[in-house]
């Protein structure tokens, strides 16, 4: 029982960051109809940006996480404006191939810049775990969970309560009608892609210190983001949040009770099973946003 609780706590920490990844991806897909295979590369970018900010600029750890988010948003915006905007009226397959190209290019650019050796990102938290009754949690992991929950809440507020969020929801429902009502579609697309990429970078900056930063870390992150999005239903924000937490817990339980070698297979199996039996996601009656 205590072991189960421990697995649940570990799963929630992972799940919080998976949810961040999933929310970004689900927004980009739902709003822009772009299958963003480069999503995981923004996660990698976040981890390396944090590493660079700490190592080169020597800033505080918390500032480094903010810097990673800013870098993710800036590069996401650039990517949308230069590559996706000219292709806005192309088919989903065309943009998918372009994003696959971006994925390969970004990953190997990271490999060239940083080399293949994994980097450990320093953090200011003590390594001794906090013992809370039956479970123990490292302070860093607790911090990761808190920030992830905070960012999820901020995303929800952005989508539900701001003018930009309203424009995003309108674009999701019907792009042409939203444009007729005076919503600047180009601006909304750029903002969405930048926002989604920033969330992925945040996840990378948060999980980077927990594990290690290495160039191919984004591949698994992409697949996990896709698992989360598929679990939650495309374009479904609460679904992505729940899906992320569910995937994190399922992975921890799978690694704990089945075999740690197959930890990453959990996500793959979830993708296959959900697409087969509940293709609209576990929580949705139909594809929707927020």
């Amino acid at each position, binding site marked *: 029982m205590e072991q189960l609780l421990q697995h649940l706590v570990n799963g929630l920490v992972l799940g919080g960051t998976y949810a961040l990844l999933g929310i970004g991806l689900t927004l980009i897909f739902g709003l822009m109809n772009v299958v963003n295979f480069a999503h995981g590369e923004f996660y990698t970018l976040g981890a390396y940006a944090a590493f660079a900010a700490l190592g080169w600029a020597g800033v505080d750890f918390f500032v480094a996480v903010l810097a990673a988010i800013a870098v993710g948003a800036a590069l996401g915006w650039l990517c949308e404006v230069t590559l996706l905007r000219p292709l806005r009226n192309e088919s989903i397959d065309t943009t998918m191939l372009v994003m*696959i*190209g971006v994925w*390969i290019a970004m990953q190997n650019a990271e490999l060239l810049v940083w080399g293949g050796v994994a980097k450990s990102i320093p953090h200011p938290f003590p390594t001794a775990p906090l013992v809370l009754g039956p479970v123990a949690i490292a302070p860093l992991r607790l911090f990761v969970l808190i920030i992830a929950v905070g960012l999820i809440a901020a995303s929800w507020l952005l989508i539900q309560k701001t003018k930009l969020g309203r424009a995003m929801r309108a674009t999701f429902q019907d792009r042409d009608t939203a444009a007729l009502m005076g919503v600047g579609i180009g601006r909304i697309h750029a903002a969405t892609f930048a926002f989604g990429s920033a969330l992925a970078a945040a996840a990378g900056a948060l999980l980077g210190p927990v594990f290690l930063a290495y160039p191919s870390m984004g*591949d698994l992150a992409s697949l996990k983001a896709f698992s989360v999005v598929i679990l939650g239903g495309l374009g479904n924000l609460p679904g992505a949040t729940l899906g992320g937490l569910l995937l994190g817990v399922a992975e921890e339980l799978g690694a704990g009770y089945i075999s740690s*070698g197959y930890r990453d297979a959990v996500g793959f199996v979830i993708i296959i099973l959900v697409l087969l039996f509940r293709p609209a996601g576990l929580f949705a009656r139909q594809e929707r946003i927020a």
Partner: protein
Amino acid sequence: MTRVGGGFLALIALTLPLWLPSAYHLHVAIMAGIFGVLALSLNLLLGYTGQLSLGHAAFFGIGAYTSALLTLKLEWSFWPALAAAIALAGAAGWFIGRLSLKLRGAYFVLVTISFAGVISLVSVNWIELTNGPLGLPGVPAPELGPWSLRTKTAYYYLVLAAVALSYVVSRRLVGSRIGRAFVALRENEALAESIGVDVTHYLVLAAVVSAAMAGLGGSLYAHYTRFVSPEVFLFSYTVTMVIMVVAGGKGTLAGPLVGAVLFTALPEALRAATSWQWQMLAYGVLLVLLVVFMPRGIVPHINASFSRTPRP
């Protein structure tokens, strides 16, 4: 392509070992041939039915492992092992085809990626069977009757025969009712279905033939490099196949072969100048540029510019 041109190309391919300057060049030609088989295989799905498989390395790897394991552990000879590799990869293709028959586009891509991910994890973790990350060394060279196909020249002709076989199979398939059904599905599935094209049947068929062909490539690869490890499932193999098909011209028969020759020879030629990472980076950029500026690929592009010039 005209008959004369085709005959000329065939003559070049058949006499290649005679005038290539070194064994290294022959090695490049063999790898180009193996990738030619793989590119033709991916082209059947991507080019004709319009479904992108990003797990094609799984079928390649299944072929390689099946062939290697049967010859090493059960001491089968090469030919039955090759047949088993093709059959098992085809069976995997059937499984994926049946699984994903309701899925299209991005969802199909995800299922194929996931399938390749699971198979790759199995190859790493099922150590009793696959020897885990260390791989299986000492895969025997194939034999044909009393002769061993150990030399590069002999292996080149074996691979060339496989390319020819894959080309003929693709050509026969594409030129038949079945191929027209594939294209109909790619262009407008609802319309195709309304005039009586059995969508499920044809998509599964395309997946089976495509996967079996990739299994053939995998078996040839295993017996050529004489070593199989979980690296055969690397995503970069799939990426290379996609680039070859998209660059050469998807939905054409010559395109994937042109792509395979180009993208095997080009990296080798650039090897001295650049590192592997630069190549992969260039692949990514190239894919973006191709999709944006030459969306149909090299072969259709050249054909179009030829047919525009008036004949004398």
